[in-house]
């Protein structure tokens, strides 16, 4: 049986204007951020709902032991996430010469937040079995960390991609950094809500 050689491999794909690709990335990132916000809205609701119900008086676990996560870790994670989002956002406005340093700094801060959350889990003092608050804490912060890690991977690919592409891809560079930084801003908002509820309100 004859097989025609894939022409896309030999003739190359049709070139589309970079402005279109940039717009796709920007719009897609806004919708993706909205999806993530709704994902964490479920945990926000779970916190308020279970706390208000306080079923069998077990919201904070079985007395006398009440889960009490370290505030120091919480503040450190919050600072890293907020700073990472802010630096990533600022990188959009930086000159072509210095944006790379900005995005790498943002990447380091986001990864630091992931590392700190992992460190906190290893010395949490309570576990997922310690009733409702502990469940929400572990679920929310755990999945937030996974999301953050995924966004860090995205940020790293943006840095790598655009560095390789050089100065010819300025439009795409701006769009890619704008997209990932917007998602990080939304995640920073989620982190603020998580900090207030999980560390202060409890």
């Amino acid at each position, binding site marked *: 049986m004859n097989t025609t050689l894939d022409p896309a491999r030999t003739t190359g794909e049709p070139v*589309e204007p970079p402005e279109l690709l940039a717009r796709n990335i920007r719009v897609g990132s806004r919708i993706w951020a909205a999806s993530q916000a709704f994902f964490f809205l479920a945990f926000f609701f779970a916190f308020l*709902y279970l706390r208000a119900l306080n079923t*069998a008086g077990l919201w904070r676990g079985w007395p006398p032991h009440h889960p009490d996560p370290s505030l120091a870790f919480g503040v450190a994670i919050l600072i890293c996430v907020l700073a990472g989002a802010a630096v990533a956002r600022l990188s959009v406005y930086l000159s072509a010469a210095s944006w790379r340093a900005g995005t790498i700094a943002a990447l380091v801060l986001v990864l630091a937040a992931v590392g700190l959350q992992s460190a906190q889990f290893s010395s949490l003092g309570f576990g997922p079995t310690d009733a409702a608050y502990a469940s929400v804490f572990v*679920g929310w912060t755990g999945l937030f960390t996974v999301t953050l890690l995924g966004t860090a991977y995205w940020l790293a690919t943006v840095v790598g991609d655009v560095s390789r592409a050089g100065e010819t891809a300025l439009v795409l560079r701006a769009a890619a950094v704008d997209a990932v930084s917007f998602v990080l801003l939304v995640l920073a908002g989620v982190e603020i809500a998580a900090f207030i509820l999980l560390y202060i309100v409890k």
Partner: protein
Amino acid sequence: MSATAITVRRPVWRRLIGFNMLTGLVLGIGGWFLGAWIGGQMAIGHDYLVGTDQNDVGIYMGYLFGLIGWLVGLGFANYPIGRLLGRPPTLRHHETGGWTRYFRLCTDHKVIGLQYLFGIGIFFFIGGLNAMLMRTELLRPVEQVWPAGQYLTLVGLHGTMMIMMTSAFILGPFGNYFVPIMIGAQRMAFPRIEALTFWLTPAAGLILMSAIAFGGIPFGWTGYAPLSDQARSGADAYVMAFLLIALSMTLIGINLMATILTMRAPGMSWTRLPIFVWGVLATSVLMALASPVLVAVMSMVLMDRSANTSFFLASAGGSPYLYENLFWFFGHPEVYILALPGFGIVLEILPVFARKPLWGYRLAVAGMFGVTILSFMVWQHHLFVSGMNAGLRPFYMLTTELISIPTGFIFLNAMGTLWRARIRFTVPMLFALAFFFNFLIGGLSGVFLSDVPSDVTTHGSYFVMAHFHYTIMGGLVFAFFGAIYYWLPKMMGVVFNERLAKIHFWLMFVFFNLTFFPLFAAGFLDMPRRVSTYAPHLQWLNDFVSASAYMLGFSMLVFLANLVWSLVFARIPAAENPWASRGLEWQLPTPIPVENFARIPVITSGPYEYGVTGAPPVADFMPAALPAAGS
């Protein structure tokens, strides 16, 4: 010599080796065993990971690694690895070639549309087979074929196959195939993600069916906690499958929204957008925002089952009501994820065969987005009899009844379009008209369920079952078949046998109504859902329904026979525009070229100007200069 003229001889067996479905299956099965082993090792020594007599961690890890193997086998890892190795970026993969592109990663939206069509078709028939088995059990009022637990699993698999694996992906075939063409684009915004959304669905389907081997899903399609928390390992399959489905739905929503927002051809203003695309856009909003909540709630069940958290366990501070709230926060918009594409399809079909402009175009758009917004505010009507705060009931009763107003707009559009029209009763038109007949009954019966006093007496009965079958099967599935008969000549390039198609329609229409209308009566006579036994005096009613259901199932075989006959044996080539439609997709040659348009067209008029004297052609397909898409 041009590159396309070069041919390479390769035997069939060689083409089976490489990144395709077969490799995906092999790596997926291998991944499952590897993951299960790793999960088993992880759980050793962590008593909170193995709080029950089964190791859910191992099962979840098995599914996770199986999924990774499946995707790697299909070739989804090639691009990221290639990029790591410094290969240049590309948006497209394997868009040309023979039949093998249907069995591997291909980023042509038309190939993906057909993959979806046949993929969800398989799940539709599995779900239908489950329904036949359920009706067989219900031939007698006592337990006869299936024990109660297995019957519940049957109900659960029927529900999940029909709602989550079929109806939820109704955008898959027609949205992916036609939206880029209808807006004048050459591709979707994110082609690789588009391919991923499809290839997650077979994985979800296989995982879901594996539940049978792990104790089933004895809690129905809704997976209510604490039943789903406490069920055997079959529940793990349910959770994992729903996670994948929800992820896929989210990504479909994002992709379609981004495509419609950014890639419209020049001249494709919002008021020239085909009404089907508006339906897709409204559905995409719901998919992008509601489906993540399903991902979250399934993550919570997963953690409850594997890490012994207590989101839904009242004995440890959680609450099953949390599950019900979150599930239905997704679940009710999901109802409109099913309905809105149906609205779009039938409103797309009506003007073509009424030969009149669509009446009240803006009203239809308003109706769709009215439904979209209100659908987020009605979910608690599913909890009317669950012991919710009575003070909340009036609000949710009101919002639920309000949603009938924008839905009514769609009926107004249809009636206005049909008014004094010279209707051509083609098969797609028959299905579109049947949609309105059935959906009207479904909608009117829904008012009873939105009203607290009547809901209290009918909740949990066959009345509810009849209602949602009238809306989902009577509405969406009829629209779906209408779309198949309408668009398949363009998608496959062949003509259906019209006589068989009409036999299919009439059998389906008559026996659908004979199957489900009596179930309203069964509900009023207190026949409960999800239970295989019932009061003896209801047997004649159930026997009648079962007989009708078998005939309804037979009508699907007629469709299948027609499909096979038309595609494999008859193969009568379809005309390029057999319906004389003004739709952009019908102006293209059949089969549609890989790039859809040689140049991005300039849209010059709306798609529904039938009978309008002096209406310009719908688009200029060879504009002097190549304009930028989306501008």
